[in-house]
């Protein structure tokens, strides 16, 4: 697959101290669905807007299908954006909105109308073609915005938090619809979101950003199972952290001494022995061991609190040494028929070594 977007050393400096994007290099393959993920202020929207041409990078180069487009204005770039507030023209009908972009491509009025109808059909809103945007619901407007962008068959489709204005149920529905749309039209999608669940479910590749830099770039499962930093580990899903010291390096793994006990991890570690380290593990990877059950890592603990959230139980436990961690257990049966841990009880936590992350240094609580 060819690279459709290449970002080389892109930076956006607002002043000497305020840096929006810091030396980001990124390649997007043709047909991929990539999300830029991060909290507000991390630079993801700025990066997207630079790809679209609405902001100029202070350093670096942007290539689109091999051509340098860094200084090319948006109306001459073969990319299209779906704006966060949809930006539908209120004084035009839905059909005219969609046809607007086709006129500048030189299509005749009749041809534009035909293609517009086609695009509306694709998103399931054919009957709305003569209505005004104000008459549509939020979800419908979003689909019109999509159609308006897609109808031009751009090389890349940019989406700026497209689902953030929708309510939860509609959002879940639209995630799936958008994924299907992507498969159908085959255009490269680059989407910005702050919702990690969204990124995981929709994207082929996730680029996690922190303070203007790329923290990690990879497939959703790689990010989830092998986070490169505590930031990524806690931004995608949740992670329990335990401070410790690297006790020993083993072939294909390591042992970390923590106040809660010795933890064995099955992950490549480059830290020297004796170095400060932090161990991380996800709540759902912990098991409350039944009497007689064993695991590669066993941590004695005391139940502090149990919270029921329908899907499962979130149990807070206190480990030796005082640290508190969370354990998530899915309920396979109704609550009444499940074994619910009692606060105050002494238990043992089981954790498999391949589910343990090891990071250098200490993580702020």
């Amino acid at each position, binding site marked *: 697959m060819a690279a459709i977007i290449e970002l080389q050393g892109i930076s956006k400096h607002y002043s000497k101290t305020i840096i929006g994007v810091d030396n980001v290099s990124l390649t997007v393959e043709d047909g991929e669905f990539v999300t830029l993920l991060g909290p507000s202020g991390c630079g993801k929207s700025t990066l997207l807007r630079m790809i*679209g*041409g*609405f902001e100029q990078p202070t350093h670096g180069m942007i290539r689109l299908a091999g051509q340098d487009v860094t200084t090319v*204005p*948006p*109306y*001459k770039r073969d*990319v*299209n*954006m779906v*704006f*966060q*507030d949809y*930006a*539908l*023209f*209120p*004084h035009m009908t839905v059909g005219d909105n969609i046809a*607007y*972009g086709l006129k*500048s*491509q030189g299509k005749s009025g009749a041809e534009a109308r035909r293609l517009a109808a086609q695009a509306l059909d694709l998103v399931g809103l054919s009957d709305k073609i003569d209505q*005004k945007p*104000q008459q549509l619901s939020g979800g419908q407007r979003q689909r019109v915005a999509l159609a*308006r*962008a897609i109808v*031009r068959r751009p090389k890349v489709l940019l989406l700026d938090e497209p689902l953030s204005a929708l309510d939860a149920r509609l959002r879940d529905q639209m995630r799936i619809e958008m994924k299907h749309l992507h498969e159908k039209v085959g255009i490269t999608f680059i989407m910005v979101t702050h919702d990690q669940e969204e990124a995981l479910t929709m994207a082929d590749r996730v680029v996690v950003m922190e303070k203007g830099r790329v923290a990690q770039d990879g497939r959703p499962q790689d990010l989830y199972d092998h986070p490169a930093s505590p930031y990524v580990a806690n931004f995608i899903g949740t992670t329990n952290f335990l401070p410790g010291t690297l006790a020993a390096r083993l072939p294909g793994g390591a042992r970390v001494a923590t106040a809660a006990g010795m933890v064995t991890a099955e992950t490549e570690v480059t830290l020297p022995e004796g170095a400060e380290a932090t161990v991380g593990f996800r709540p759902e990877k912990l098991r409350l061991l039944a009497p007689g059950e064993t695991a590669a890592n066993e941590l004695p603990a005391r139940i502090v609190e149990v919270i029921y959230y329908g899907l499962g139980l979130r149990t807070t436990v206190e480990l030796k040494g005082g640290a508190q961690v969370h354990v998530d257990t899915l309920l396979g049966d109704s609550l009444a028929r499940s074994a619910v841990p009692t606060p105050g009880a002494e238990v043992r936590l089981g954790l498999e070594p391949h589910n343990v992350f090891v990071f250098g240094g200490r993580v702020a609580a």
Partner: protein
Amino acid sequence: MAMKPSSSRLAADTALTTFVCLLMAFLYVPIWVLIAFSFSSSRSLTWPIPGFTLDWYRKLFANADLLAAVGNSFYVAICASLLALAVGIPAAMALHRYDFWGKTLFRRLILLPITLPGIVTGISMLNMFRLFGFSQSLETVIFGHATALLGVVVTQVFARLQRLPKSLEEASYDLGAGPARTFFRVTLPNISSAVVGAGLLSFVLSFDEIPVTFFLTGRDNTLPMYIYSTLRRGVTPEINAVGTLIVLATLVLIIISVVLSRDRTPR
């Protein structure tokens, strides 16, 4: 919150409502007086009115000078409003979009003629025109009005631009339209209510303008100048007739502007 109004509150409210009615009367009684006297058969303006006549209106329409002045006023008002829009809309856009050296001074200067006595605007522009060899004429009046009216246009259009989401313009760029096309097909239609309102207001203000016109006009009179010079010689009932017609025209204009501003509510 349902509370039983106390008697003191009731008294206060009644007093206030009475005040409001009296204020309305204060504002409108003089206008009714004007209209009443335009039909009075007596030359003097004493009360009660002796008889009813349409003479003054007849004399009005036979008055060639007056009719010429009205025509001049229309000419000046239309040109000045269009000019004010042509310069004011870009000015509002520049203030809304760009940051540049001297921006505050630029904005203050544009808004200055609103609070500054028209006499100063008139005199300063007269001197400028004289310096470059232009003598006073209706055309110098047009430029004077347009300058004074810029502030009106800029205020209205700027306020509307602030409420326009930036993403609409960006979406237009994104869809392949350059700056010119974006302005005419997206920006302008969405600020049209402000443009029409500002244009109408400018027209009315120009029609009624005196201080700037006083200094910049040559031999041709505008309507207010004509009325003013007539008034200097003494009050005549024809003036009442002119006044009534102006009130009528104003009413029509207000109705038009209300209707126009109601139709456009794309939110």
